[in-house]
């Protein structure tokens, strides 16, 4: 069953306005516009970002753009998430890491409402995503951006038209203004000169930058990056790292980065989550995680080939296997 069918629509279209739920606006002082980078490096043994402590304790959703609580998702016989808790503070760059196959991309799809979880709350900017109707979801997604691993550029139209696509779909701006906006966005990723190329003519790094330009075309409040560094050469990687950091600061966005690339990710993330077996096994600033008490977290942060996450796929002992036929 395709994921979008699962997000079937029901009920009446209740208009969604992007912004804080009204009950949160009562306490504007509790808002943290941006988690100070310095505040993250508290190493008092508690493996938690300070903002999380403060907001979680008082149940203030205002600080966090995304709050996931007790998420459970089963695909076939496999349990992908089993009681996952996660928060993304407004204005932060939050990284989500973990071994391959732990369902990081699935989590992004759940946040985007493309997949419905089996249970748990997924609050995005005050809206409980799994409970939204199809129309409400599309409304909510106008303020979300997602950069796909495959870039997902529309292959039948040019670079320019790709970036113009969300603008044309959601606004009634005149052509000249769309042109200016597109060139502005393309300039931000350094590809203003490539506007007339077709997606098939772009290198991997270029198509990801075009996809990024398309993602920021409507100035979303929140961008999810799915493996933005995978398969990039070192230069392209450096470009992307600085783009993500730069965009987050200049446009006051919130970012959620899913990645394997520990060094690049650690260099830009305010806080990190490490997921394994459907749960969060470590959370905190990159520095905190490097000194994490859990050997599993340390193995991941240091990239050791063997450890609690075994090198070998579960099997009989090698001797038994080899000698089995004899």
């Amino acid at each position: 069953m395709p994921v979008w069918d699962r997000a079937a629509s029901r009920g009446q279209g209740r208009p969604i306005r992007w912004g804080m739920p009204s009950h949160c606006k009562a306490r504007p002082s509790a808002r943290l516009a941006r988690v100070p980078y310095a505040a993250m490096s508290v190493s008092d043994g508690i493996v938690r970002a300070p903002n999380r402590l403060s907001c979680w304790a008082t149940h203030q959703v205002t600080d966090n753009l995304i709050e996931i609580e007790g998420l459970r998702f089963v695909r076939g016989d496999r349990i992908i998430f089993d009681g996952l808790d996660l928060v993304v503070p407004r204005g932060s760059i939050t990284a989500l890491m973990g071994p391959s196959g732990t369902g990081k991309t699935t989590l992004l799809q759940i946040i985007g409402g493309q997949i419905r979880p089996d249970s748990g709350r997924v609050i995005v900017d005050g809206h409980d995503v799994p409970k939204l109707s199809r129309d409400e979801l599309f409304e909510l997604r106008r303020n979300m951006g997602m950069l796909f691993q495959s870039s997902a550029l529309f292959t039948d139209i040019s670079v320019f038209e790709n970036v113009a696509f969300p603008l044309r779909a959601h606004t009634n701006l005149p052509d000249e203004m769309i042109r200016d906006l597109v060139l502005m966005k393309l300039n931000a990723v350094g590809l203003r000169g490539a506007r007339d190329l077709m997606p098939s003519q772009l290198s991997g790094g270029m198509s990801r930058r075009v996809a990024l330009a398309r993602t920021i075309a409507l100035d979303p409040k929140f961008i999810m990056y799915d493996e933005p560094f995978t398969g990039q050469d070192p230069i392209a990687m450096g470009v992307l790292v600085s783009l993500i950091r730069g965009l987050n600061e200049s446009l006051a966005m919130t970012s959620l980065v899913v990645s394997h690339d520990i060094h690049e990710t650690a260099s830009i993330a305010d806080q990190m989550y490490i997921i394994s077996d459907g749960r969060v096994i470590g959370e905190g600033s990159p520095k905190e995680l490097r000194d994490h008490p859990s050997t599993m977290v340390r193995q991941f942060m240091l990239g050791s080939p063997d450890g609690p996450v075994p090198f070998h796929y579960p099997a009989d002992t090698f001797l038994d296997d080899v000698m089995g036929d004899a």
Partner: protein
Amino acid sequence: MLRYLRLLGQWALDWIGALGRASAVWFRSMAGLPRRGDMTLLLKQVYQIGVLSLIIIVLSAFSIGAVLALQGYTQLARVGAEESVGLGVALVLLRELGPVVTGLLFAGRAGSAVTAEIGLMKATDQLSAMEMMGVDPLHRIIAPRLWAGMICMPLLTAIFNAVAIGGSAIVGVDWLGVDAGGFWGGMQDGVQRWEDIGKGMVKAGVFGVVISWIAVFQGYDSTPTAEGISVATTKTVVYSSVAVLALDFLLTLVMYGDFN
């Protein structure tokens, strides 16, 4: 025994599920009101689906018309009724061969292309990306293809019929020497506007709906891998062909069934 029964049950459930999803796709795509720019999308699809199918339609039509005239002539000439060749060819084409052959060619040429295109869009996350941009792919991608299929099939069938009759006239009249007056006169005498031409076009319209529906659904519902797309493309051609032939029989029964 129980195992086979269970397999049959699973198979039936799969089919019912697929039918349900296919209906949901159809209704959700057709429900949306036209928006700005939709006409451009539709034009592009009519080009992709209709204009690009023209060559194969015209070539097949001409050779089928020519062959029908040849075969009809040899048989009818034995009883001295070679002038009826025009009428015979026209009736066979207008009532049956025109819509059916156009439908089969359309499924193979345009249907498979649509499935592969949508399947590839799904595999490269283009549909997902569109959803995440708050644009409904059913409206943006699926609906124009459905409409284009419904518009193109009757037009292609009309072109097929005209070219095939033209081809039969070239072979029958110009080459085999059937009297032109008898050829066209017999045709005009026996062919009825609604009974033969109209009902043939109704068939074409129904085939257009069904083929484009199967094609977009197979693409939309495909497994987003190279293998999944190839399976979906094959399914489109097989299912549409079977559907065209079965529906042709049903429609003939319903529309021409009042023999008395």
